[in-house]
């Protein structure tokens, strides 16, 4: 375990997220449904600063009882993080790529102790590519 103190929880409660650097790794901290998430701030597509992108609900197509398409709708219980470079979308909290779920953002376990946010850098969960 290699825990690093990266932020106070109050910072995230104020702004929703924070970009920090541990060693040579940029990490995006996101406060999501009372949990703190930590992703490497590198999109799996071309390396964009994914953690700084829009947070927006997933979109689904809606049909009526007769099978007619009636429009697109937001999915209330599925939030996506969108890379601001090209629009690759990742499902929160896990960081799976919305268009290719077998791929996932590199993420790190987070602990919050005494209001301090700690990230375990040795326990990353997926290989990303910068």
């Amino acid at each position, binding site marked *: 375990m290699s825990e690093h103190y990266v932020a106070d929880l109050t910072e995230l409660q104020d702004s929703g*997220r924070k970009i920090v650097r541990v060693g040579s790794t940029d990490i995006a901290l996101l406060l999501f449904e009372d949990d703190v998430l930590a992703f490497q701030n590198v999109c799996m*597509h071309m390396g964009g600063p994914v953690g700084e992108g*829009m947070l927006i609900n997933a979109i689904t197509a809606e049909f009526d009882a007769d099978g007619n398409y009636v429009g697109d709708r937001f999915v209330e219980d599925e*939030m996506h993080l969108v890379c601001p470079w*090209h629009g690759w979308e990742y499902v929160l909290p896990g960081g799976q790529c919305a268009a290719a779920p077998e791929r996932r953002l590199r993420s790190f376990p987070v602990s919050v102790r005494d209001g301090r946010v700690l990230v375990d850098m040795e326990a990353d969960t997926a290989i990303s590519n910068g």
Partner: protein
Amino acid sequence: MTDQLLNRTGTDLINTGVREGFNTREHLRNAERQAQDRGFDKFTIVDVDAHHYEMDHWPAIIKYIEDPVIRHRAEAAIHSSDPARTILHNSPLPQNMAGRILRERYRRGEPTDGDTHHEVSVIRRQMKAIGIDYQVVFPTPMLELGLHPDPLIEIAVSWAYTRWFTEEVLADDPAIKTMVYLPMNDVRASLRTIEQFGGKPGVVGFMITSGRFQAIHSNKYVPVFRALEERGYPLGFHAIHNAKERMFEGMNRFISVHALGFVFYNMVHMTNWVINGLPERYPNLKVIWIESGLAWVPFLMQRLDNEFLMRSSEAPLLQRRPSEYMGEMYYSTQPMETVDLQTLQQTMRMINAETQLMFASDYPHWDFDLPSTVCDLPFLSQEAKLNILGRNAVRLFGKEHFDAEVDLGTAVEGNGRARVSQQ
């Protein structure tokens, strides 16, 4: 609902792709790291297709419109919510994915470096961040002017734009280049454009926007192609998409229109160009196919070769198969289809990528590529990477357009693996 969600998650503070205000260099800092990691400063990278948003400078451009009535109309449009809409022929579809591509929303507030022209400031930042030494810059909404129902608008606006860009922007930085817009709905205007802007600093060629319906092999264009061939300027066909294209009227999504549109028009022009023997008639006119990606080329090669072998009587000027002519033309990389690397490798073999392919970023558009898109490909040789990233463009445009000491490099460092998206 969207705004509520954005506020709830606190993204107002960091939803710009930057930390404090929009700045291209900061937006692209991960690209800058890629450039440093891969040693892009050790060799020359030429970006043969990038863009800027000329509508940010609409008043500066339209002052050069020579027709007073059209200039008046353009001036009146300044006060509308979308200055371009009332005079250009635009698509209503959202390039920025309903705000997901953040730079389009925030770039207008980007600061200028001192007295440097705003466009020069921004282009220098994007070049520095991405690792580009020379960048060929094209306009954005004006690429649709070839579809305008009034050819006088195409003539007037393209002329004004080119005067502004060559006189007020290109003059400030020899690393920024352009291929000049030819208003091909009017041959005399196109010839005047070649006469006026040929030889101007930064002009490395001329460009036809592919969204237009007149046959490219029409006899009326003979003087244009002769003029370009005599002067040694390459001719680019820059693709566009067009939601109003008759066959696309049933397409309800940007992704659909864009995926087909950017190859559709170039496929039509390429077919006419080859089947009507223009490569035989203008053997020294170099042709570049821009911003259509690459996957369409092997498809068209196979289709045309197969039919040519049966119906060669309909293509009497051809001495060889269509694919052989196509393999001698030039292509820009972006948006390079990288999902299936084996297919991409075959594509590069068929188009003779080592000598005919040129890197293009298309930055800042929504589907831009970085040089790593090329240099991380596992099947390309070092020589091929250097050629695609810079040498092919220097050879095509001519060394006289580049620094005398242009460093074409001896090694390219990929990151040892293809991007995750390519696996």
